[in-house]
Structure formats: C-alpha cells, structure tokens
C-alpha cells in the first residue's frame, strides 16, 4: 500500500513537471534561455570556442521559428517563392543570423538581462516579451538597451520569430534590401546573395582565426 502511494506520488510529480514544461510562459522561456546562455558564455574564461558556440546554438535555436522569421524578413515576396525556395531562403537566412550572433555573443557574457513579466491572455497566439540588457563593461555608455522578443504559440510551445533592439527589428531591417534583390532577380537571386554573404563570412573567419 505504502509502495503504491509512493509510486502514485512520483507519477503525479512527473506529470505536473511535464505539464509545467509544456506550459512554460513566454517570459519564462526568454528568461530561462538567457540565463542558460549567459552561464555557457562565462565558461572557458569567456572564450568564443567551437564548443561554446555549439552549446549556445543547441540552447537557442530550438526556441526560434526560423521559417516565420524568414517570411517576416522577406515580406510579400514570400508568396512568390516555391516551398523549396522558401526552405533554402530559411536555411541561408538562419545561417547568416547564427553566424552574426555567434561571432559577437561573447561580448555579452557580462550582460545583465532583466526580463519583464508578461501575462498573455490564455487564448493569445502572439506575445511580445520585453527585456533590458545592461553591459557593465561598455565604456562610458552605460545606458541599457531594450530588447523585445515576439513569440508565437505553436503546438510544441512558444517560439521566437522577431527580435528588436531599441525598436529596430533585426528581421525587418532586411526587408527593403531583400525586396530590391527580389525585384531584380526573384527568389533565386536572393538565395544566391545570402549564400555569397555566408560564404564570404566563413571565408573571413578562416582567414582571421
């Protein structure tokens, strides 16, 4: 009898734990991920090693919806792209964002991140989570930057699809440029431009490392 009760208790605890994980609110997701990333960045004396990059990517990438992010960056031209082109655009855009982020991320290892609580309505599909990032070592300019994340609810939890810093969206600042390229050469030209940029970045990295 006692044994059965024990098993039941463990069972309940496990169920409520997984329910909690499922029901992680958007601000919890941003707060937890930021904290985990900062912990990883502080390791290895804050060096930007391959292992650190891989660990951060493993933490961060699953929390993003890159398809939606790319569609937002491309705008109305997204409709003209075939599913295959959309996938290539997403892959290349993700690579560009990841490269840019991972080459600068260790600068934020001493950042203080304050994520504001947000209470989205139970049926809300989208929510914006606000946070303040303060860099104590930033010479002179000690003003903090406001970083906002826009998330969408998916069957597997909340996913980020837009990030803006001080009101400038990291995603939509690409749109005018993307539209210019699309107007001149269509989706394939845009895929090629992104590829060229990514190739140039990885070439530069080999040269500098």
């Amino acid at each position, binding site marked *: 009898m006692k044994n059965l009760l024990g098993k039941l208790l463990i069972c309940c605890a496990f169920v409520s734990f997984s329910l909690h994980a499922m029901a992680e609110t958007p601000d919890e997701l941003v707060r937890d991920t930021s904290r985990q990333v900062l912990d990883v960045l502080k390791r290895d004396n804050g060096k930007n090693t391959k292992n650190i990059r891989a660990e951060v990517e493993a933490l961060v990438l699953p929390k993003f919806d890159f*398809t*939606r992010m790319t569609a937002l960056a491309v705008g109305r031209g997204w409709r003209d792209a075939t599913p295959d082109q959309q996938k290539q655009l997403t892959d290349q855009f993700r690579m560009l964002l990841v490269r840019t982020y991972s080459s*600068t991320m260790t600068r934020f290892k001493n950042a203080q991140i304050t994520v504001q609580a947000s209470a989205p309505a139970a049926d809300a599909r989208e929510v914006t989570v606000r946070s303040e990032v303060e860099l104590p070592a930033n*010479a002179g300019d000690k003003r903090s930057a406001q970083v906002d994340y826009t998330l969408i609810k998916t069957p597997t939890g909340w996913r980020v699809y837009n990030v803006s810093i001080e009101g400038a*969206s990291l995603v939509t600042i690409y*749109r005018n440029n993307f539209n*210019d390229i699309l107007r001149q050469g269509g989706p394939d030209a845009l895929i090629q431009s992104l590829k060229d940029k990514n190739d140039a970045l990885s070439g530069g990295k080999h040269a500098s490392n």
Partner: protein
Amino acid sequence: MEWKTLFAHRDPRRARRVLPALLAVSLLAGCAAATPQNRFDPYEAANRKVHAFNDVVDRAALQPLARGYRAVTPEPARAAVSNVFGNLEDVVSVVNHLLQGQFARASSDLMRVALNSTLGLGGLIDIATPAGLPSYKTGFGETLGRWGYQNSAYVVLPLLGPSTVRDTVGRAADIASNPRTYLLPEPADANVATGVNLLSQRANALELTDAADEAALDKYSFTRDAYLQYRRTRIGAADSPAMNDEPSIDALVPPEAPAK
C-alpha cells in the same frame, strides 16, 4: 582628417554653416538623379555617395583612431570622457523634455546635471545613474517628432552618418543649445572638443558597426532601415500605419502549421 578641415574656420558660427550647405548640395544632387524606390529615402542616389565617402573615411581614419584610442586609454578614462560629454547633453535633454511635456524626465535630468556637475566633478563621474536617476537622453529632433513631424526623409550627413531632414535640424538646434558652445568660445578649443567627442562616440559604437558589417548584405540599406526604425520608436511612431504596407505575417505563414 577631413573633419578638421571642415571645422577649421575662424568663426565657429561659420563652421556650423558648412554642414547645411553640404547637405543642400547633396539634396539637389539627389533630386536630379532620383528614381526613388523607398519613399522614406528619396535622396538615395546622393545618400549612397555620401555613405561610400563616410565608409572610406571611417575605415582609413576614424576606425583605426577609435581602436587606437581604446587600446591606449584605460576604460575609466574613456568612461570619464564619455561622461563629460554626456553631462553636457543632459542639459540639452532638460530643455527638450520640457518642450515635449515630459516634466518628470526634465526634472530628473536637471537633478542629474546638478549632481554630476558638482559631486561628479564637472561630469567626469556619472554618479547620478547609480543614485537612481537614469539618463533619458533626448534632443530637438525627437521634440519635433513628438510635435507631429514623424516621417522625414533619410539623409546621410558627411562624416556624421545617418540622419533625417528632421534630425539634421534637431542636431543643429542641439549644438546651438549645448553648453559646450558657450563654455568653449575659442574655435580651436571647440574643434578639439568636437574631435574628441566624435572619437569617443566612434569608439563606443565599434561593436555595433562591427556587427552590422557582418550582418548586412547591403550595409547602406541595413544602416538606413535600422536607423529609421530606431528613430520611429524614439518618437513613439513605431506602429504608424505609414510603415505597415506589408501583408500580415499570418497571411504569409499560417500560424496553425508551424513548419519545421
């Protein structure tokens, strides 16, 4: 160093006239060449030329100077330089917060100037921020925006970089109302101060511009759109309908089917 020749006039008021004159020339050039694609950037052709010029000067002179300044000056010294200029800008912020009707911020900025100018040794140490008085810097460009002048054409200023017509007017007013103008009446001193401030700001922005170099396919439009979005947020016009002529994201990617 081109900025020195730009500002090396005997009469500081004349020096300040050089920029608007240059600006007027670039605007005219833009009108002649234009097949404008972006309605917030009617002077794109001219802007791109100035951007290219700035980029050359930046790579050849400003960036190396800023990196050198970082290498030879300890962090506290650089912070002190930033703080002195920041303290003077807080005076401009007091006036503009008043003009914007933001009285709480105006009085908080006034307290900042009072604290930092006295106990903070003339602005060398920013003791107001840790004392719970955060800096809310603002200027006349934002005041004009708050008064309703929200959409303004993008302009790249020689050496100074991204701006708009509105923000250029604002910058001129900010320079005129900055105590520096009265504290340093000698043009030689004023030029040195302008140079040091430019260098200090460039050094503070190195991370930002390095990241932009990596992230951008086209640095010109990347910088422009980041600047315009940032300024729109600062004047409370982020969600202006003028910006949102794109289809909603839900029309592009149905949210029910989050693709992998």
